[in-house]
């Protein structure tokens, strides 16, 4: 399955001198959010990370499905 992952601010990934903020990840069926963090080598402490799955705050154990939209956001308090 393919999941759309939006990487925010300091979690953007560098590739060929450009910052990548949208990744389409191919994952095994039933993969969890924890596996996504591992694949993307995201080490930000969980209390500083907001994981938003299809608009809802999600847990690490949440199961992913084909076509899901995921935002990985270093937490901010507002503007």
């Amino acid at each position, binding site marked *: 399955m393919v999941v759309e992952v*939006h990487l*925010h*601010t*300091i979690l*953007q990934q560098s590739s060929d001198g450009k*910052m990548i*903020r949208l990744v389409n990840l191919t994952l095994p069926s039933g993969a969890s959010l924890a596996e996504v963090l591992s694949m993307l080598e995201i080490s*930000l*402490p969980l209390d*500083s990370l*907001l994981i*938003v799955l299809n*608009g*809802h*705050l999600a847990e690490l154990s949440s199961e992913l499905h084909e076509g899901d939209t995921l*935002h990985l*956001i*270093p*937490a*901010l*308090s*507002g*503007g």
Partner: protein
Amino acid sequence: MVESKNLTNGGSMVWRVNVHNQTWKIDPLPDTWQKLGGRALIARILVDEVPGMCEPLGSYNKLVFTPGLLVGHMLSSCDRISVGGKSPLTGGVKEANAGGTTGLQMAFLGIRALIIEDKPTKKGWWIVHLSKEGVRFDTADELAGKGVYELAPILLEHYGDKVALALIGIGGEMQLATAGIQNLDKDKIPSRIAARGGLGAVLGSKGIKAIVIDAQGCPKPPIAYPEAFKIAQKAFTKALMDHPQTAVYRDYGTAAMARMCDGFGALPTRNFSVGHFEHVDKISGETLRETILERDGVGTPSHACMPGCTIRCSNNYADKSGQSIVSPLEYETIGLMGSNLGIGDLDIIGQMNREVNDLGLDSIDIGAALGVAAEAGLMEFGDGPAALKLISEIRNGTPLGRILGMGASVTGKVLGIEHVPAVKGQAMSAYEPRAIKGTGVTYATSPQGADHTSGLTIRAKVDHLDPKGQADLSRTIQINMAGYDTLGACIFAGNGFASAPEAIRDLLNARYGWDVGSDILQVLGKASLKLEREFNRLAGFTSGDDRLPEWMTREPLAPLNAIFDVAEEDLDGIYNW
């Protein structure tokens, strides 16, 4: 008159300026004001001295400037000035605060509260000059009609570049209900605005074009226990610097909220009709940073608005030739003048921001008014030049411009639009309350009207779409925010204080020789909210005013199809603590 050697008195004096007689006096703080500053002191003064039912632009309203309790020591992110009075926008209590240098210089002059009273007997414009010699009125008729970007250098040339300024633009002169009061940042740019609620109109109603604050020759504000203060300051600064959010704000600024809000389906788009903007990437903090860095010139993605701030979340946004368009370009403006108008172009948004800054207007309420105007057909969503043309109507003082300048609520009433995103007459900030329901509770119940700085809940790890528990969350954050506004602390200083919670107690006890407890932030916050509620009650507010617009309770917001469904009893119980 008071001799100059007695003016400062340990930062505990009340300066009263009467614009009717052009007289002034300096008094000690009354006992009940001693442990208040900033937002809470404004509420105290309004309850004590301003009739609740008075006309906001009339002679009985007072305009108050008060540095927060921790202002004056270059404590990182803690030198904000609070400005307040009865709001011509909401008809209720109003406190708006700003960074820059006004708070610092007032604290050096020993001012805990500057209270501007009454109205002039005849038309004309004045500069009020504050210094260790006291107060002076200088005529300023020749400065009328000038925007703040032209006016500030003239004043700095005349009064010297060491002074701080609080000034109004044409919007304040016209007494528009969205007019704010601009203050200089540390680089002398007059863009740190106490924006919300029309306080610039109140200053304009008193015939004052600018206040010059000259603290040269004044001693630093006293500290009762300097060593203890230094220890607490060090703990706070370290906690702030170590906090993960500090680095994000430094590199991406508040604009980083654009994609975050969009991810929650909460980015106001096309007059709050949808929570996702298809061009969010173009107006994001990430694009803002990349654009600034790839352009030569004066642009910078990191900038401190106050001396001594270690977060540096501000910026200077330059055009392709490297010339500054505006400094700063912040998330709320990007949300209200970008996605809310369907505009996905930071250069256009920056130009709009500069224009409303120059007019001295609140970019949130003007952005919301333009969104309402777009729904009414006065411009197409996405048409940046048309939006700029509507702003020029305000500058030209046309009837349409004056309507827009009165804010989203008046604009909606005049144009017959139900979809007005406002509470108590004040436009919502750039967080859709149907998708971030705790913030919706804040918008509904804050005595200040819809305002994210009164209690934004988006950081909390809760299901923002579940109506249950949102009032409890909002209550906690509203109390803390009112506390920070009383200290003169930036909302982001709260990250440091959250990691070093004893620092607030220790700093206050060291600064003033007090013996306050660890709960002082909540004590101050509750005191502030209680007084604000009391002033609003005296001004005629009821629980019926503590509601979101009806349409938000019945029209689902795409893409999450959320309505605002927090129970009314939860809203009515918000101040039961």
